[in-house]
């Protein structure tokens, strides 16, 4: 955009400078409504929609999402569809091709068919799209969100497909992770037995979602391991030394906490439900807080700009929340094509036709790029000669991806029923419709029921199936069936009086299915430990637990460090570092220097233990808990020795050396006043345009917490919405998220919740009823009427 236009008071960015006393009230006459709708905006700019008709409420939700968050909705769905090159040019081509080749648009199309086949969700999504478009149509160029002005483009009409794309983008974030390629690389150097030790399925200190000792019923599906699996799949030591790499893997820290405590453990006798989903922290926030009241529902919570409904929240009778299951639902198969045309591949002893799907990628300032992708019985061939997974030696491998997200599903139907649920049976009915990304769905009702269910459509796998790239020529290696919902891990009204999840493995080894995944360990351990001991619980106790900075990982590991530290070998400065860790209160509070030193010491130890033996394998590092548990079990753990030196290093040597190695950088940080944990991690909420829009970010936030800690706030990742719902007669609820209701950097509502969030405070939620419209908290009113 020319600078003159960009700075024009009547057309450019000054138009986005929202008046601090802006009046949001207005009356609209719009096409597409069945009746009337009314929106009360409260002092935090949270809208409370009142409409008789479900469709009208959805229309207004779409309108409000667009009014306050249009740019992010479009940008995120463009990203999901592999269309970023249209906006920023050729530098995004590889990103776009990754999305296309993963089959993101294919997945969204499959989902949309299912959504539109159901009359309830069809009505909702059609109305939502109409609402978004009503806003886009009313928008003058001068009123475009500021990002459009910066990047010089305009919004296009919204479609139902874009809502499906939004869900697929979340699905990739939460269920798109796969270790198959690095594991396959590792097979060149390690046996399956060795890899079992480096990547154990069940950690020793696991505190699972389904309590240990639970007896599981006999599985209804017993997947059959292919006859040649031991020789050609598991046993085979691959000599090719692959260097396969998955591009754009989701952040391993995506996770969440949720729990519900029963009336038996609360002071009031009513259940309390809590949830805090951990995602990349961004401006504008991924969440938009709102309430929707119609003749069939009255739900409050957070919504995703991009889809209709309340996603995490509560209604008059129940509350619900989610954490990610972390289950692995993405596998790779190696495909042999007949020739370079890729139109036929070898499958069950015959040449089989692949479906060829051309994807046209528009590139700003350049000709279109057409990427034709072969689809097999498994799914799209993501990596092939034209898009190699191995960008080091370029050894050709055709890899098809089998991903649950490609299967037809109607996730919106779950929210349709959940937003309207009255009791456990309604919840149980609602969640069956959720396929992917599988979630730990926590529930509590006014009746006193509490439950958690790991729900989604997950394959029943034979032992070790899908950990490595599988042969793609043999149907015996395909997924053979799905675990029935009743056999998914769940807990309903337990005697312990609570249910919880924090991305840990859902059950111990007694669970009859093989369930690989990228699980966390320590947050679940800490939460269950605390909930076990708490009684007479109040919402205040739950806030304290959300904000808990106690580091269980360090609690387990610190004694190991000091047991083996040889202090006689330390300099005065190294000794000082050790003392700071020794005297540390094990809390990752903002000012704690011990937390920073502990983490650097541990990181340095990890490198010493693993680097020599594992460096040949790309992107391959056992998790932190594996090292902790290995050292707790065995001080002579075989990887301690540095294989590049003639001496045999002992655990004393490596623990001591790790501290020595970490010290210079720590001293440097101390000199620059960056050693305190909060300063070291420097919690920052970036704008979606990341470092190119730093003035739109908020950096150096005063907040503690971190990885493996209940308060999971890291550098730019953490609790993206914190909610506490006390299911008393008149519901008492609290919520806060790191952002603000407006996506406009020129609005004071852009970041209005950030400081409150960083301080660990909450807003008391105003759960409105129709009679409250004259309350003084009702600050503005919008009305919608059909033309």
């Amino acid at each position, binding site marked *: 955009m020319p600078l*003159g236009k960009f700075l*024009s008071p009547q*057309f450019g960015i*000054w138009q*986005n*400078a*929202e008046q*601090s006393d802006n009046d949001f009230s207005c009356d609209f006459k719009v096409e597409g409504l069945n009746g009337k709708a009314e929106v009360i905006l409260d002092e935090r700019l949270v809208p409370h929609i009142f409409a008789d008709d479900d469709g009208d409420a959805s229309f207004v939700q779409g309108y409000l999402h667009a009014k306050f968050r249009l740019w992010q909705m479009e940008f995120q769905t463009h990203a999901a569809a592999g269309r970023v090159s249209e906006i920023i040019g050729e530098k995004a081509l590889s990103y776009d091709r990754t999305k296309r080749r993963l089959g993101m648009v294919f997945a969204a199309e499959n989902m949309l068919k299912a959504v539109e086949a159901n009359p309830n969700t069809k009505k909702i999504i059609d109305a939502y799209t109409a609402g978004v478009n009503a806003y886009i149509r009313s928008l003058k160029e001068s009123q475009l969100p*500021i990002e459009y002005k910066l990047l010089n483009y305009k919004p296009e009409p919204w479609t139902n497909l874009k809502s499906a794309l939004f869900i697929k983008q979340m699905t990739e974030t939460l269920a798109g992770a796969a270790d198959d390629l690095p594991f396959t690389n590792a097979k060149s150097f390690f046996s399956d037995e060795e890899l079992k030790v480096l990547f154990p399925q069940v950690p020793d200190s696991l505190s699972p979602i389904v309590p240990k000792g639970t007896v599981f019923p006999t599985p209804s599906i017993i997947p059959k391991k292919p006859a040649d699996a031991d020789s050609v799949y598991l046993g085979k030591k691959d000599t090719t030394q692959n260097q396969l790499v998955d591009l754009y893997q989701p952040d391993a820290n995506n996770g969440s906490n949720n729990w519900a405590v029963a009336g038996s453990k609360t002071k009031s006798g009513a259940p309390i439900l809590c949830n805090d989903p951990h995602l990349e922290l961004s401006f504008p926030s991924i969440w938009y807080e709102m309430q929707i009241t119609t003749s069939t529902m009255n739900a409050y919570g957070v919504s995703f700009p991009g889809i209709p409904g309340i996603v995490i929240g509560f209604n008059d009778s129940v509350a619900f929340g989610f954490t990610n299951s972390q289950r692995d639902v993405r596998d790779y198969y190696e495909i042999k094509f007949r020739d370079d045309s890729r139109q036929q591949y070898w499958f069950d002893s015959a040449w089989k036709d692949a479906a060829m799907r051309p994807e046209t990628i528009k590139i700003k300032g350049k000709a279109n790029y057409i990427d034709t992708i072969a689809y097999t019985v498994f799914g799209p061939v993501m990596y092939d000669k034209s898009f190699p997974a191995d960008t080091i030696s370029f050894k050709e491998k055709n890899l098809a991806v089998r991903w649950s997200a490609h299967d037809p599903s109607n996730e919106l139907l779950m929210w349709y029923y959940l937003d309207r649920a009255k009791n456990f049976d309604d919840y149980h009915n609602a969640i069956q419709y959720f396929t992917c990304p599988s979630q730990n769905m926590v529930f509590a009702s006014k009746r006193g029921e509490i439950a958690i269910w790991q729900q989604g459509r997950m394959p029943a796998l034979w032992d070790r199936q899908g950990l490595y790239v599988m042969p793609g020529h043999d149907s015996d290696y395909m997924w053979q069936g799905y675990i029935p919902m009743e056999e998914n891990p769940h807990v309903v009204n337990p005697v312990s009086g609570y249910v919880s999840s924090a991305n840990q493995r859902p059950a111990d080894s007694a669970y009859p299915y093989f369930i690989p995944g990228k699980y966390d360990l320590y947050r679940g351990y800490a939460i269950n430990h605390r909930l076990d001991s708490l009684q007479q619980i109040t919402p205040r106790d739950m806030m304290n637990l959300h904000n808990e900075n106690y580091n269980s990982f360090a609690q387990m590991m610190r004694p190991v460090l000091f047991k083996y530290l040889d202090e006689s070998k330390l300099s005065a400065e190294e000794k000082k570092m050790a003392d700071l860790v020794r005297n540390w209160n094990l809390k990752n509070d903002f000012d704690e220097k011990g937390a920073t030193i502990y983490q650097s010491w541990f990181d340095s130890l990890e490198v010493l233990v693993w680097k020599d033996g594992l460096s040949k394998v790309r992107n391959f590092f056992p998790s932190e808990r594996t090292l902790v548990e290995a050292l707790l079990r065995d001080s002579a753990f075989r990887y301690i020795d540095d294989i590049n030196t003639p001496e045999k290093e002992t655990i004393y040597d490596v623990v001591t050396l790790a501290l020595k190695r970490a010290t210079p950088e720590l001293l440097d940080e101390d000199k620059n006043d960056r050693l305190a944990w909060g300063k070291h991690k420097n919690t920052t909420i970036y704008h979606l345009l990341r470092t190119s829009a730093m003035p739109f970010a908020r950096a150096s936030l005063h907040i503690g917490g971190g990885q493996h800690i209940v308060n999971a706030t890291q550098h730019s990742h953490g609790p993206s919405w914190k909610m506490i719902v006390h299911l008393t007669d008149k519901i008492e609820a609290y919520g806060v998220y790191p952002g603000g209701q407006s996506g406009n950097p020129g609005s*004071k509502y852009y970041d209005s919740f950030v400081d409150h969030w960083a301080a660990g405070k909450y807003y008391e939620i105003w759960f409105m009823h129709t009679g409250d419209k004259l309350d003084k908290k009702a600050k503005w009113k919008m009305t919608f009427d059909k033309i």
Partner: protein
Amino acid sequence: MKFLVATILTALLSLIAGIFIPLWWFFAIVALLVALLIHQRSGKAFFAGFLGLFILWLALVVWMDGSNDGVLSVKIASLLPLGGSKAALIFVTALIAGLIAGFAALSGSYLRSSNTKK
């Protein structure tokens, strides 16, 4: 007197045009037309156009920034190479409009001169 009328007319008509005509640069046409209509020597015409738009944009932006409590201007002044100074941003904004309108008026003045000579 002519100078003052030209300045005020350029500013006023540009403001109105900005409300009804969706072209950000239309004030250049306005400045040119005003210079054609109210003939002045080239230097005076330039300054009338310059001043008209400099003052118009300055006034608009100062008012908009004030009612926004400076929430946006500080961010934009950091995004552009202006060291986060909103005063600099406001000045640059007004200067751009002033220069464009000044040169448009200058063209108008030359156009009128060349026409009269014929």
